[in-house]
């Protein structure tokens, strides 16, 4: 079952694939440049709301504020 959820709700150590990045053009572009594009696989390294979350994307560790993480929609991947 593939449910699309915001990245912010993904649990620690889970992986997912990006489906959509919502938000103003500036933010989408900025995220895209750092590697958050549709179809990219990401893994949550740290998540402790309401603080920022740490995500592994394309080999680098990127910290995202909660607001940003809410705008990235992902499909979780089964298993680790």
């Amino acid at each position, binding site marked *: 079952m593939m449910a699309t959820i915001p990245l912010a709700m993904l649990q620690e150590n889970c992986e997912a694939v990006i489906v959509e990045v919502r938000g103003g053009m500036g933010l989408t572009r*900025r995220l895209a*440049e750092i590697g958050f594009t549709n179809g990219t696989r990401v893994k949550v390294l740290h998540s402790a709301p309401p*603080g*920022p979350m740490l995500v592994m994307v*394309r*080999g*680098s560790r990127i*910290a*995202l*504020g909660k607001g940003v993480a809410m705008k990235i929609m992902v499909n979780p991947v089964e298993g680790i």
Partner: protein
Amino acid sequence: MEKIRVALIGNPNVGKSQVFNNLTGGRAHVGNWPGKTVEKKEGVCVHKGVEMQIIDLPGTYSLTARSIDELVARDFIVEEKPDIVIDIVDTSNLERNLYLTFQLLELEANIIIALNKQDVAKSLGYEIDAKELSKLLGVPVISTIATEKIGMEELKDAVIEAAKVKEKRREHTISYGKPYDEIILKIASILQKDKELSNKYPVRWLAIKILESDEEVLKLVSKSPVYEEMKLQLSEAKKILEEDVDTALAEKRYSIISEVILPKVFKGTRPLTLTDLLDKALLSKYLGIPIFLALWWALFRFTFDVSAPFQDLTHMLFSKLGEIANSHISDPQLASFVADGIFGGLGAVLTFLFPIFFLFLGLALLEDSGYLARAAFVMDRIMYKLGLHGRSFIPMLIGFGCNVPAIMATRTIDREEDRILTILVNPLMSCSARLPIYLLIASTVLGPYAAAGVYSMYILGIVLAILMALLFRRTIPYFKGKPSPLILELPLYAVPTMKSTLVHMWERGSLFLKKAGTIIFLGVIVVWLLSSYPWEAVHQGDTVVLENSYIATLGRFLEPIFRPLGFNWMAVVALFFGFIAKEIVVGTFATFFGLEESSEDLPTALRSSGTFTPLTGLAFMAFSLIYIPCIATIGVIYRETGSWKWTIFTVMYELTLAYVVAFIIVTFGRLIGFT
């Protein structure tokens, strides 16, 4: 000698400064990009009879028109057309780094890739095939380990080789697929017709930027005769394309990187690293902030306690010099000028220099090891609630050492509103120059509670900074809204090299020294002047009668304003000179009593003069914490905000706040029954 210009570019954290230092021997000329607040670093490297002028461009992830850093880098490459651009790529982070590489290729810059941090990649269990990468991209690729100076010679050789190929533009096209390629071609061919434009800029790049709605490029092209034609084509194109062209193009670049390039060059696996292990603790929900506070305290101890003997050493040195001057120069005025003015001034400057350098050393270690980004991460939640950006906390931290470099450090905050807000509240962080004031007053009138009194000043500063930040956020329209969201890369942890840390420390420290140092030195001279003249009236026989000096006149003139706070003319004068540099406040008191600054008798003298009671003393401490930043800080505020409006606002709000707080302390205290 043949001269070529080489620009260095790359993502943040790739080791660019290390490469720069390796090439130039660490000798850099630091200035500013004209008209911008971005730092410009240049150096020279001579190799095989060729002189290479190395220009360090700001570290960026991309070359859009969105941030100053990116614009500066891009403009340099496009307008100045350096002979070679060295793109420093972090092997342990290849995908993201190649994004910038693609942008450079589109810009048709003459690039050489330095594949850096090979050692890190290897320790993580994988390798990148440099030859294959070179083949795919069509540019030279040199493997390097900058921290061990490996690959530097090959790099220099490659630069000279590539520079010989005189065509500064490389034809290398990235296919974006239909319908983009066609549209780009169409727009490019229109632009080609404008010879002025096409001779100066790569037209394909212009076309792509136009599609991405790049402000700067659009501005540029609007002046061209073919503008209307191009606009027509563009609106045609927009009908076919999706809304978000630039995101689509970004995705396309990444898909080429991950599907075409990566499979051919990446060999190995990616296991759990030391970094992730350490992050488990350092980013932990409950321990993250306490650990940060513990490290912060350690930094403080290091900065103040370990530097103490060096401070005393300088003090001793300059006192000695003063004595020598006094005994060897016959004319009393000249002797005083040299001993108290010049040596006194130099002494004052150099004394506080040690804590500053120690602070920068500590910060350089924290930054180069990679920890500082983690600190920003754990503090972000709190910072956000306070209306400040996560990255504001580093300038706040530095502010405890000195506000001048702290305010300069706000450059890493990208959104202007967040940055200015941080600058506005930064002076409330009690800098190291205010400590002598607290120590003096506290030991004079607070007796056994002296330590508590000093601590409370630091806490007061933090509390006020938080309150002001929240207040400004709510009330001033410019700051309305939330701080910009955090998007921050956390680099791998690394053991910082001694050399790079020292270079880092030196860069920041010497800049500060030049700026603040001169001002403080001049300030002391001014104090000397005003307190020594009119000469005869002040120097009657062997005693110094300060009441007759110009300073005293000034103090008495201002006294009425401060009477409600309980400050007498001496205190007022001291505060007045604190405007020039907070260090001078203690010195001013010392001069009043004809004593040395470090004299143990100063608290006693101050006590017996009855200048302060415990209550007014506390109010004075609070006042000196808040009132105005020293002139060096004001200068930096102006430079970093670029506007008189904000600078004057800072001065005004702080003066008001200082008066109000001191007044509250005195009034409240009197109500409870203190005098």
